[in-house]
């Protein structure tokens, strides 16, 4: 049996949905922190938190799917490039969890628990504590910057395949035909 050339439709859908959600949440995160105290700021903070928890939940689903479904074979490329690509993927997955979890912990420690979509109160897994809040705020922020850099590296790698290698990499993620 030859390995599939594409990820499964579920994996492809989760990839693009989460790509959109993560870029969106990242942009909102950068913007909202620059706003003065206002209803708009509070609204965006809540939306950002709801998006973050949604990203966390979908990432859990995605990881489960990834572990139970075989991905397509690597494109032909030098071994070191394959290693860098796999390392980037691994770190991306780690931060899909670390960034929202740190944000959640920051919310709890700051005394503003998350109520998902204004309906479902989420538990606090860290106590309310000012110093802890400051720490998680920093962790959330720099983990998010790290995720931003990894996404940039991931996109740059894909562009390299499209522009320089002119191979069919994007077919794996549902774009174009083999």
């Amino acid at each position, binding site marked *: 049996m030859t390995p599939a050339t594409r990820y499964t439709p579920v994996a492809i859908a989760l990839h693009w949905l989460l790509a959109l959600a993560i870029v969106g949440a990242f942009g909102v995160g950068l913007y909202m922190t620059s706003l003065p*105290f*206002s*209803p708009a700021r*509070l*609204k965006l903070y*809540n939306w950002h938190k709801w998006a973050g928890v949604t990203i966390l939940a979908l990432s859990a689903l995605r990881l489960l799917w990834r572990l139970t479904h075989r991905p397509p074979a690597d494109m032909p490329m030098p071994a070191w490039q394959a290693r860098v690509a796999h390392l980037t993927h691994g770190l991306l997955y780690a931060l899909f969890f670390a960034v929202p979890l740190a944000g959640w912990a920051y919310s709890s420690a*700051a*005394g*503003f*628990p*998350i*109520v998902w979509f*204004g*309906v479902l*109160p989420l538990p606090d897994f860290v106590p*309310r504590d000012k110093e802890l809040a400051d720490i998680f705020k920093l962790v959330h922020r720099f983990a998010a910057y790290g995720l931003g850099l990894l996404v940039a590296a991931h996109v740059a790698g894909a562009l390299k395949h499209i522009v320089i290698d002119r191979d069919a990499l994007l077919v794996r993620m549902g774009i174009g035909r083999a």
Partner: protein
Amino acid sequence: MKRLLLPLLAPLLLAASALTAQAATLQPEKSDLSFTFKQMGVPVDGKFKKFEAQLDFDAKKPEAGKIAFTVDLGSVSLGDASFDAEVVKAPWFDTKRNGKATFVSTGIKPTGPGKYDVAGKLTIKGASRDVVVPITLASGVASGSVAIKRLDFKIGDGEWADTSMVANDVTVKFKLAFAGL
């Protein structure tokens, strides 16, 4: 002698104390005044650090009791620096022009053992509303809670009046310890 004296004196002391309604003094370090509201579904707690109360109360004649309560609005804290800086501003408590909130009782009605309904006038930011506060009195501590609507007092005016952002319902909770009650 001592054993004889105490049973004799106790009823006398009780009788004496029943003759006059005592003016009790608030013990701030044992008292709490806090509130809870929802911001986009998220419960937010705040508290006031400075408040005073004048209480004249006799459990035998609760109807004759009086309570006057004053809150220093500037002593508010929501446990978050950016919220604390905001809540004293004009759209909220406007503490520059309205430093105090007051509650003055107009009548006390017993509703059960150690339980009373205290009717009175609550004034915040120049607006007054008649409210009835159910309290429980036990070992010198009056505790209870009362639900108010923040917009009745223009707390969170203008762009903050949107109740889908900050709910109109605010629950005020108190635990007031009195000496000499």
